[in-house]
């Protein structure tokens, strides 16, 4: 019996062991793993969203740039659909029966019991006729949402476009977006997405096992109403934005205008552009492909992504640093025999001016003058390589203060940083430390190892207009009702050059426009003293780029501007007059007729400077030996040839007034 008595422990042990096993499994299911908790919410809890109105985008004068228009999605819950007249539905929404079946099958695959989108973005007109017959279509329902409408069809790259979220977006924004939602993908729509989108309204609905709604979860304590997006007041002036886009029509280029006292961007033109209304609604995909395929690449936001040598537009900055460093004074003259000898190299200056002063040097864009200045700057601490090395390093640091060599930090996505060479970079380039001013002389006239965006050179103009400081350029003035902008846009950034050094340079820039010997006389305005500087940027791929930078009026400037017209030739040919029209429109809200060379605004609008792309077939016949070579097919397919449209206007406008390679 004793032995049998022990068996009670075995049985009790079994009871305890099983209890521990059950509790262990329960502990795993309930406490360690959250798989079941998530499945439970998936099972029963469904969030029903209401979409808020997206914030409207205004220009600086409260003119609407982007607004909303209603559109409708047709939704279907497959298990609730009863047999009906499918043909009538097809006719209303404009699809055929084959497509109908395909879409219905797709909805079934997604879920028989849950709503899914059957037809997206139905127009208001279609919705009107659909609405009358909806009662016939059981299982179908309509959800209202809004899409963008751009009343003026301007500022496409500036505003940006919206498209359906990708799985990546959904992941990145941690739960806010659901498949089928829209998100700003570029421009302001992207940068200010969190402000513009508002907040979706949520109703947490409970569904039972038969997919019948059972009311809201926790008595609606977790539900919320949709909150509309904030209205955004941009800094753009739609009048000059529109004018700028017209002037750059059929040209590749860009215009940036800044209000110097605030850093607000007044115009942000990137050409070629596109009609922003094309990237809205159902025609998004074909239009997107078409725009994407354009060889002039309308999606490039040239004001902040285009990299150009500043060319002669760099000269005022040269002069400022030289004055500030004391290597020249306003009365210093140099002799220009039409060239400049640096070491054993001869740099051309296309006009012979004899003895020339700073003021006239700027107005005439005399290369020799600035080669001399640069040589003096680089050798001011001694001519040895080592000395020049450290002097250059100090010089480029001063240039950097003007916002070159890095991004400016604009509130806009995609700003590119172009490199400004440090001394060490030249060491690498020359594979030694033995280089001096003669090796890098082209930097003196803004060529060579120096690249800037149009925004950066416009900002240099703002600095000069402000006599020594800038505020970070930005595109938004106000968010919502009275909500201010980021305080970083209210800080003054001083460039470290005393205000008194600016006047002699500005004198030169005034003369460039307003004296007969100036290079930018095409931008002369009546009653307004415009100061400016032309640039003609050498371009290895074709005709020179036409550049103009300037500001107006001279005292208490209201606008600083940079215009780049690719393949436009001399600065005075296109960029200078275009800048003057924009400035005039902005300052006086009117446009006077002809410029000094007799050209009219229509001539500039009509001029076609687009590069001509000769497309060859991508695939060559197999029997030609060429097809066996592995050449870069893309390069071959798109040989770049520029051709200036042959019209009367060209003969008129591109008449070199003064001989200069870089003026």
């Amino acid at each position: 019996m004793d032995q049998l008595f022990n068996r009670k422990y075995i049985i009790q042990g079994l009871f305890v062991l099983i209890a521990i096993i059950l509790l262990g499994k329960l502990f795993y299911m309930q406490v360690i793993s959250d798989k079941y908790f998530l499945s439970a919410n998936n099972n029963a809890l469904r969030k029903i969203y209401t979409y808020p109105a997206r914030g409207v985008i205004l220009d600086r004068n409260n003119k609407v740039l982007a607004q909303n228009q209603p559109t409708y999605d047709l939704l279907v819950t497959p298990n609730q659909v009863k047999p009906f007249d499918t043909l009538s539905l097809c006719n209303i929404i404009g699809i055929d029966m084959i497509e109908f079946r395909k879409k219905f099958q797709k909805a079934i695959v997604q879920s028989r019991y849950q709503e899914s989108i059957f037809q997206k973005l139905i127009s208001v007109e279609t919705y009107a006729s659909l609405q009358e017959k909806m009662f016939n279509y059981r299982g179908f329902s309509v959800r209202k949402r809004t899409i963008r409408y751009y009343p003026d069809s301007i500022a496409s790259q500036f505003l940006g476009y919206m498209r359906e979220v990708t799985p990546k977006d959904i992941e990145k924004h941690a739960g806010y977006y659901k498949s089928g939602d829209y998100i700003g993908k570029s421009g302001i729509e992207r940068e200010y997405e969190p402000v513009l989108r508002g907040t979706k309204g949520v109703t947490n609905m409970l569904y039972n096992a038969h997919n019948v709604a059972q009311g809201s979860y926790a008595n609606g304590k977790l539900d919320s109403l949709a909150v509309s997006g904030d209205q955004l007041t941009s800094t753009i002036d739609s009048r000059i934005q529109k004018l700028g886009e017209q002037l750059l029509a059929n040209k590749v280029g860009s215009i940036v205008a800044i209000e110097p006292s605030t850093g607000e961007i007044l115009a942000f033109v990137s050409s070629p552009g596109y009609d922003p209304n094309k990237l809205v609604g159902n025609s998004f995909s074909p239009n997107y492909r078409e725009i994407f395929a354009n060889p002039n690449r309308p999606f490039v936001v040239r004001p902040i992504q285009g990299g150009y040598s500043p060319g002669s537009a760099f000269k005022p900055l040269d002069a400022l640093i030289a004055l500030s460093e004391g290597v020249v004074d306003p009365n210093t003259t140099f002799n220009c025999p039409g060239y400049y000898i640096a070491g054993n190299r001869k740099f051309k200056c296309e006009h012979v001016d004899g003895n020339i002063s700073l003021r006239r040097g700027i107005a005439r864009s005399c290369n020799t003058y600035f080669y001399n200045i640069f040589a003096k700057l680089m050798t001011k601490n001694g001519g040895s390589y080592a000395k020049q090395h450290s002097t250059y390093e100090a010089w480029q640091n001063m240039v950097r203060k003007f916002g070159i060599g890095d991004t400016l930090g604009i509130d806009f996505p995609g700003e590119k940083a172009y490199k400004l060479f440090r001394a060490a970079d030249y060491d690498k380039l020359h594979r030694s430390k033995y280089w001096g001013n003669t090796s890098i002389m082209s930097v003196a006239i803004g060529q060579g190892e120096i690249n800037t965006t149009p925004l950066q050179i416009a900002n240099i103009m703002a600095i000069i207009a402000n006599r020594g400081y800038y505020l970070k350029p930005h595109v938004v003035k106000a968010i919502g009702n009275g909500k201010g902008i980021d305080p970083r846009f209210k800080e003054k950034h001083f460039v470290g050059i005393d205000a008194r050094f600016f006047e002699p340079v500005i004198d030169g820039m005034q003369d460039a426009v307003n004296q007969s010997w100036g290079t930018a006389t095409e931008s002369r305005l009546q009653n307004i003293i415009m100061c400016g500087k032309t640039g003609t940027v050498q371009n290895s791929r074709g005709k020179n780029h036409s550049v103009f930078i300037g500001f107006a009026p001279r005292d208490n400037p209201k606008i600083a501007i940079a215009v780049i017209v690719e393949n436009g030739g001399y600065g005075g040919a296109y960029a200078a007059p275009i800048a003057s029209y924009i400035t005039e429109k902005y300052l006086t809200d009117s446009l006077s007729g002809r410029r000094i060379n007799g050209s009219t605004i229509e001539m500039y609008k009509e001029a076609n400077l687009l590069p001509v792309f000769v497309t060859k077939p991508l695939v060559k016949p197999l029997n030609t030996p060429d097809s066996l070579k592995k050449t870069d097919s893309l390069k071959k397919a798109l040989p770049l040839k520029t051709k200036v449209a042959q019209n009367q206007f060209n003969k008129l406008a591109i008449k070199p007034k003064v001989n200069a390679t870089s003026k």
Partner: protein
Amino acid sequence: MQHQSNRFFFNVDWITILIYIALCAIGVANIYSTEYNPDKAAAFSLGSSYGKQLIFAGTGLILGLSILLFDAKFFSVFAPVIYGVTIFLLLVVLVVGRNVGGNQAWIPIGSFRLQPSEFAKFGTALLLARYISSFNVKLNSLKPILISGAIIILPMALIMLQPDAGSMLVFLSFMFPLYREGLPGNLLIIFWGAVLLFILNLFLSPFILISSILLIGGLFIYNNRKRQQKIISIGVITLIAIAYLFVAKFLFNNVLQPHQRTRIELILGLAKDNKGAGYNVIQAKIAIGSGQFTGRGFLQGTQTKLKYVPAQSTDFIFSTVGEEWGFVGCFVVIGLYSFLLLRIVNIAERQRSSFSRIYGYCIACILFFHVFINIGMAIGLMPVIGIPLPFISYGGSSLWSFSILLFIFLKLDSNRMGFI
């Protein structure tokens, strides 16, 4: 007589009764929760499941307390009669039974339905206790083992005709009282070995299984190569094992119902079916798992309230406990059961009469089997065989039969000082 009666009540194990009441209360509360609808929050209603369950619990308690008034000798004396009545009822149900959910397990009596298989448990327990406790019965010889086996197998066979596999399997728990009373451990090993072989038979190919059985048999023979007697018996066992494989396969494919086969296959991971037979378990697991540590709170469960879990108030009542009370609630419930089981075993061991002891072990093991299988199936450890969670699941027959089982034992215990 008066004096004695008072002593009976005094001797009753009140701790067990308190646990019993606690479990019944948990049952009523959770059944209330499965029915609760915030929009139609009506006052107490006898028409609802929880109202009925409350009545079952009350009558169960009255039934139990009135059992305490019986003479203790009654149960051992009338054990064969009670057993006979329950067997008779099992026969009756096959003739007049109402078919519910594929099982002909219910005898309609007025508005109630009686489930004889529930009552067969204590009939069998009583007769088994009576037989084994009788003079000169020792469970180490063949005849008593066969007779005990017959007492158990008769109701099993009748229940299998309904067919109600779940209730039938409960009778396997009588193995443990037999073991306690001296059934050779080898028999248990052989039995569970057979179960294991049955399961492995579904997993592995017959070739692997047969060769490994032959290999093991060969090793044993090699070890005992000097003892001829052993070699013969090992050889016979090996051959029986191999023959068993084929019989088991035949039983699985031809005797088990298709839905029972799929349930076994599901639990073994041989089949995957989220919408069909596997749906119950998946939904029950989701409900229980979503309770997390402290649960969603009383009446706050979404899975169980929105009818995601089938058989919510009966076989899967534990999913409500898990969802609304979380791990803490599960711990309390399993703790209460464990305490109750250990308490019953300890009370059984203090009995002088072996009838009381054997009977105590019988009910402990029946309860244990129910709890283990029911909770195990709700959390996916056991195949889904529809047996209720004692005292908590909705249902009059099961609650009454468990009450009677328990209170007979309490009566026997209260009389432990007397002789039967």
